[in-house]
């Protein structure tokens, strides 16, 4: 496996211009969509099959009439332990040699399990192609020595692209700097490879708690349920089987336990 690539999105630098959204659409040739009124500059409310990058806008009240305006360019996290990848029953979703997660459009059969299994609501179903789609980390570009289109277009370097270990070092330094500047709540989201989902290969610098940005505090790999759920189902199966044996063996004809 080649060295893991990553994207680092620093919300403290984001100006909400949405150049990343436009660049993503242009490079990936994603068709225009009906705009959606969400009450802010955000469009759309969720990732769609035609929007792999999405700048989210949030207003946070301080309870005294003051308001902080947060903006964050959101994208597929390319999780080290990815719910979509584990869910996919066809093997269409795979991990590339760069550690990113991609959907092979020639294999996907449109079962939509990955759509429900993504802890971040990233994967979208495309009615036209009948397949699931999401950010490819510009798979074609990174295999030809270029960074993702969104990172290339970002005018403030809020979105940065590079080797994961190098980006993580820069990100930790940036958090320290921001804290010194008075942003006490500044924190990294998804940078810790021992943390939730084994770390995110698209990680973020946030200026407050993840919940302000609509992100889960500690996302959980859905497949971590499978073992316990299966054991309990086996327990239930044993009870049903025993119940059947007892009912049919009982000589009285009245059966039951």
């Amino acid at each position, binding site marked *: 496996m080649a060295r893991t690539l990553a994207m680092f999105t620093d919300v403290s630098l984001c100006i909400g211009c949405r150049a990343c959204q436009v660049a993503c659409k242009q490079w990936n040739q994603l068709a225009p969509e009906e705009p959606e009124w969400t009450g802010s500059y955000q469009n759309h409310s969720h990732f769609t099959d035609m929007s792999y990058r999405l700048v989210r806008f949030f207003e946070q009240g301080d309870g005294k009439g003051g308001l902080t305006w947060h903006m964050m360019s959101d994208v597929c996290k390319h999780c080290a332990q990815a719910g979509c990848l584990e869910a996919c029953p066809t093997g269409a979703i795979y*991990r590339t040699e760069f550690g990113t997660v991609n959907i092979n459009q020639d294999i996907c059969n449109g079962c939509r399990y990955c759509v429900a299994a993504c802890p971040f609501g990233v994967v979208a179903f495309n009615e036209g192609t009948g397949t699931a789609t999401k950010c490819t980390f510009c798979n074609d570009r990174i295999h030809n020595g270029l960074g993702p289109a969104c990172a290339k277009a970002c005018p403030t370097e809020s979105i940065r692209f590079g080797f994961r270990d190098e980006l993580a070092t820069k990100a930790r330094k940036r958090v320290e700097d921001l804290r010194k500047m008075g942003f006490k709540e500044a924190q990294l989201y998804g940078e810790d490879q021992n943390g939730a989902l084994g770390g995110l290969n698209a990680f973020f610098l946030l200026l407050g708690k993840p919940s302000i940005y609509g992100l889960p505090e500690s996302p959980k790999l859905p497949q971590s349920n499978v073992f316990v759920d299966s054991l309990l189902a086996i327990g239930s199966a044993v009870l049903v089987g025993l*119940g*059947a044996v007892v009912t049919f063996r009982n000589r009285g004809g009245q059966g039951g336990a």
Partner: protein
Amino acid sequence: MEPGLLKSADWPLLIDLYFFLGGVAGGAFVLATVAALVDERRFRDLMRVGYYVALLAVIPGPILLIVDLGLPGRFLHMLMVNKPSTDIGMNAITAGPFHLKLLSPMSAGAWALLIFGACAFLAALMVFLEDRGNRRFGLSRTIVGIVGSVFGLFLAAYPGVLLGATARPLFINSHWLGALFLAVGGATGAAAIALIMSILGGQNREALTRLMNFTSLALILEAALLVLFVGTVWMSGSAGIKQALGQLLAGSDSLLFWLAVIVGLVIPLALQFGGVIRKANPGLAALVSVLVLVGGFVVKYVIIAAGQRVLS
């Protein structure tokens, strides 16, 4: 967890119908096998009806699943791909073009459906040939029965485990859906056999009584698991979960949910413990069976519908 972030697979009624029929098929197959193992002569009618029900209930399964796919022509990709990728997840087992992903209940379920379908076909065929007086399939039918029962139980339970392995708040926060779906499968499988036997009539009073007794046991298990499901989701806390649960218990899905509880659990159990069914009146047994079948379908449908609704 913020519910507004997540997306839904929006699986339609077709899938609920498959989950229901899979449960009926698995439950009926297990009961037919157990009855035949205990006393084949006494319960021959039950075994025959059970294996036929299992086959008829499993036949629509693959069709419903394939129709629901975005690209139905690629249904075989559930089992095999010509040019597989190298890294398709943890615990993926590949052999040539075939793959099985142990952490993906949908992948395991596709294989289980294939194997159970073969067993259901063989069991029904053997019973049919035996009835025609051709020959006895003693041991080979028993083997098919036991193998089919294992995969039948799997077929009844895995949809619940599959839902539990999604990010939807109502599903991911409880461990009991697989167990619950299996109990529903047992109850509805027994009810399907009882319904057909009570319509066919004949000298089946004893088998019918025992089926109804089993149905009651399965319903008690189902009720206990339903309480555990709702209870554990509730205990897991956080706003998104309360919202999802509210949708099921008090929101727009609550009417169907409570209907399923009353029609599918309370009334059949009340009739049974009221001593009415113990006399094995075929008419009443048929009525109770219909109630259990309807209740079993609705309880699965409404849990899936409430869990899939995107909140906010």
